[in-house]
């Protein structure tokens, strides 16, 4: 019941639902004095009810009660629309003085949240409870209340006219979107448009498709003809003394062989055409999907599981191909064939036709029912096999631990349990299959018998010839055989439609981060970086970076310090535009990175991050990845600076060693050194080192540090590290905490300040002292 839900509209946060109006009037609060109105579903005692938090100029009002649907007083039995009226029955009404409250906060709990604030005397006050459904509404509410307290007014969200309700529910049928990002309602999707769009891929091969359908039609025409020749014609015209071709058995045999041969030729031709288009269409589809995916920004990939994405691409391409090249032609031809046969049967004997068609609906529905049941068995089997595979891969990849604690026996038991559950589900499914389908066959058999009985009686009565009866039964079986396929058609079509809508969605998806239309080119980059009041959030209403400003002069080294999760890496991701800042500006040489040409940005900024990904290939390929035209000398120089040369040269195949999936495995520190070499080879003006040396031992780190120092002449370096010793040579340090920059300055200044940096430094120094190292 989507209608009973109400969601906060961030573009018009003061909108009050109509059912509250009578209550507000009764309490003497004019509706246009309401500045904010958010709904929750749990009252202050954590009991499910309809609650609202309203803000006016003076007060914060929390009311709870329940919305009741009653019949409108003026409704008659003829009223069809809006017969029900929503009434709000008020239970509690609490008023807090808004100006005395501060620090509004959504405190997340396990599966619910509390909305709290601080009172004037510093105590915490519980304002409302809510389930997670309304959590993001209340994050917005807290933000707006904060704005009210500081500026005295509310700045509604820019995307006016866009409420959360529109994001969550299908405007046509009111049911909830399965995926807010996709905004796709399975009930209301525009099927014909989607089919037309994806059809283009196949229509490129018009000629082949026409050929294909022609072949199918010819084959099926022969299929309709052959029972007549081999039974009706043979018995009535050749074997009967009265027949026109009496005794010419050989001729009939030749005709039968001829039609067989012809249909074989047609079939062969059909398969040939199919295989050529199949390969081409699938190739085209995969290319389009993959290039569209690559164009998208990183957030698309973090929202979805990447592994699943690729298998989905392959599977979808096959499904779409199947729909256009196998499915649709097959059904079309079958429908034509059935229609033709029905007409012939009707001409031959209307009564028998009716008798044989009578069982078809019965068969159809019983098969549909059985397939539905079968499907349930399949789902069960599939979930259990997924479970078993999960356990299996869990145990196998943890084998070292299993053996270390000698838990082999327990693991065998665990595997055995899920394996047995799968076996049981499989037995169920097979048992069902072996019992159900012979039952359907029996039904077919019975209807055959009825036709045979009635027909036989007619032959004896002389109302029909023996040959016609034989032709008839042959046709009947031909009509029944595609029935199976038609039963499954519905499922197969929904499957294909879903694949097609996914394809359209991927093709339509707009990258959040896109190159400017008329990008600015940097002729000569000096390497000045500035962050100006930058905000960023991965999730709506939850800032990861909050009003951060700093600048780095050309050739300077900046160190970024902070706890894990404070937002250090996010700053780096924003600078290289893996994401875009939601507010504020990031400037390189005074140019907003959003206006900068991609090529210039990526050529001048290189990053070595904590996740080092090396592609399948040789070490040389990997180092050269960013600059394919680099000479061997340059590669060796870069590797030397990165401290990678020494270990690479120890390997039997040196720079030609294959790494990646299924090949040589490098250690964490080695991988980091290779990726530093990759970044250095690019020779960028701005080098970002995001925990680049974290996986190395102290000695190697020192060596690379000295090399990097030499490199950093005339280059802007931004180093992110939690080991402070890594940053001791930085010209300037900024401390980041909870997305803000509370401290900035040189090492000496920050030590003198005795703040966060000082504490971090002291702790790390103490740890060093404890193990006997003094600096």
């Amino acid at each position, binding site marked *: 019941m989507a209608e009973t839900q109400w969601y906060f509209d961030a573009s018009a946060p003061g909108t009050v639902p109509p059912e509250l109006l009578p209550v507000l009037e009764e309490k003497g609060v004019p509706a246009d004095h309401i500045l904010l109105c958010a709904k929750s579903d749990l009252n202050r005692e954590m009991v499910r009810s309809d609650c609202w938090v309203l803000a006016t100029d003076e007060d914060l009002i929390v009311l709870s009660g329940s919305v009741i649907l009653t019949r409108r007083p003026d409704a008659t039995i003829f009223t069809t629309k809006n017969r029900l009226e929503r009434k709000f029955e008020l239970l509690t009404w609490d008023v807090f003085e808004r100006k005395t409250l501060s620090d509004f906060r959504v405190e997340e709990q396990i599966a619910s949240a509390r909305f709290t604030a601080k009172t004037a005397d510093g105590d915490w006050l519980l304002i409302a*409870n809510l389930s*997670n459904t309304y959590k993001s509404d209340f994050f917005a509410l807290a933000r707006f209340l904060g704005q009210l307290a500081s500026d005295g007014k509310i700045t509604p969200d820019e995307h006016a006219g866009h409420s959360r309700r529109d994001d969550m529910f299908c405007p046509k049928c009111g049911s909830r979107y399965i995926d807010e990002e996709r905004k796709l309602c399975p009930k209301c999707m525009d099927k014909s448009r989607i089919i037309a769009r994806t059809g283009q891929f196949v229509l490129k091969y018009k000629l082949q498709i026409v050929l294909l359908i022609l072949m199918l039609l010819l084959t099926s025409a022969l299929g309709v003809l052959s029972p007549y020749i081999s039974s009706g014609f043979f018995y009535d015209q050749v074997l009967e003394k009265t027949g026109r071709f009496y005794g010419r058995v050989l001729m009939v045999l030749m005709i039968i062989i001829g039609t067989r041969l012809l249909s074989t030729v047609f079939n062969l031709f059909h398969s040939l055409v199919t295989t050529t288009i199949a390969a081409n269409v699938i190739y085209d589809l995969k290319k389009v999907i993959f290039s569209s995916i690559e164009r998208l920004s990183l957030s698309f990939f973090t929202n979805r599981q990447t592994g699943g994405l690729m298998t989905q691409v392959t599977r979808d391409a096959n499904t779409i191909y199947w729909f256009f090249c196998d499915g649709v032609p097959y059904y079309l031809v079958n429908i034509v064939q059935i229609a033709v046969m029905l007409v012939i049967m009707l001409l031959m004997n209307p009564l028998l036709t009716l008798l044989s068609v009578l069982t078809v609906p019965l068969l159809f529905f019983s098969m549909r029912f059985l397939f539905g049941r079968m499907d349930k068995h399949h*789902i069960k089997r599939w979930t259990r096999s997924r479970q078993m595979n999960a356990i299996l891969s869990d145990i196998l990849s943890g084998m070292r631990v299993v053996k270390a604690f000698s838990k082999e026996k327990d693991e065998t038991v665990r595997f055995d349990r899920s394996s047995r559950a799968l076996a049981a589900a499989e037995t169920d499914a097979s048992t069902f299959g072996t019992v159900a389908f012979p039952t359907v066959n029996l039904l077919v058999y019975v209807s055959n018998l009825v036709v045979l009985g009635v027909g036989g009686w007619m032959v004896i009565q002389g109302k029909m010839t023996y040959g016609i009866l034989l032709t008839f039964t042959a046709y009947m079986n031909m009509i029944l055989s595609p029935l199976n396929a038609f039963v499954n058609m519905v499922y197969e079509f929904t499957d294909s439609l879903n694949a097609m809508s996914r394809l359209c969605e991927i093709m339509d998806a707009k990258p959040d981060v896109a190159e400017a239309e008329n990008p600015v080119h940097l002729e000569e980059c000096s390497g000045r970086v500035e962050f100006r009041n930058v905000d960023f959030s991965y999730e709506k209403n939850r800032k990861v970076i909050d009003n951060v400003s700093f600048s780095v002069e050309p050739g300077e080294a900046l160190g970024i310090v902070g706890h894990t999760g404070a937002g250090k890496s996010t700053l780096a991701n924003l600078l290289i535009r893996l994401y875009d800042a939601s507010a504020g500006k990031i400037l390189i040489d005074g140019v907003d990175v959003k206006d900068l040409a991609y090529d210039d940005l990526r050529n001048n900024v290189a990053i070595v991050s904590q996740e080092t990904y090396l592609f399948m290939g040789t070490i040389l390929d990997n180092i050269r990845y960013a600059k394919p035209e680099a000479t061997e000398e340059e590669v060796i120089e870069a590797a030397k600076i990165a401290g990678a040369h020494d270990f690479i040269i120890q390997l039997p195949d040196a720079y030609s060693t294959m790494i990646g999936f299924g090949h040589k495995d490098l250690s964490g520190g080695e991988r980091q050194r290779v990726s530093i070499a990759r970044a250095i080879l690019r020779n960028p003006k701005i080098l970002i080192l995001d925990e680049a040396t974290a996986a190395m031992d102290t000695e190697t780190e020192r060596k690379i540090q000295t090399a990097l120092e030499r490199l950093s002449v005339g280059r802007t370096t931004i180093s992110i590290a939690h080991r402070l010793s890594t940053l001791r040579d930085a010209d300037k340090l900024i401390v980041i905490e909870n997305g803000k920059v509370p401290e900035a300055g040189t090492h000496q200044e920050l030590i003198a300040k005795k703040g966060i940096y000082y504490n971090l430094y002291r702790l790390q120094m103490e740890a060093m002292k404890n193990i006997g190292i003094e600096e």
Partner: protein
Amino acid sequence: MAEKTNEKTALKEVVAVRYITKDNAKFEKNGDFIRMTASLPDDEGTTEEKTYDRIFLHRAFPFDFPYAYISVLDGDSKEIGIIQEIDALGEENAAMLRAELDRKYYTPVIRQILSVKDKFGYSYWKVRTDEGEIEFTCRDTFSSLLKVGGTRIFVNDIDGNRFEIPDLEALDRRSFKKIELFL
């Protein structure tokens, strides 16, 4: 095993876990929240009486021991100590802390499954709970169901709400049939 461990190697000799008991702590209502006054040793080992105006409770083993092994945290999410058994704190305290825990771990209990519709890997649920009828939606039904022990199920919906089926076998047959597919 326990008998074999001699005193010197027992883990409690190595680390001191601060346990909150009836003797070292007092609890009282502070508006909508709970205030605690406790005398517990700090990291240096000195014991001092301290008052925490608002404490946060967190279950260490939420599925197995809802009212035992409760971590008590201060406003900065730092652990003050652990309550081994809530009921050992006296009837009045136990009732207050239990109520607070129940609120934090708000989880409607599903008594009957009215319908589950599966579409494209998402499922639309309609259930009857102790709190009345609730509708919710799950993304990837299979991984939305968390099986605890043999027959206990937690269902996580698309918004991050949580529902509990305490005993699958206690469900009526028709409800069970609806969920069985996903187990």
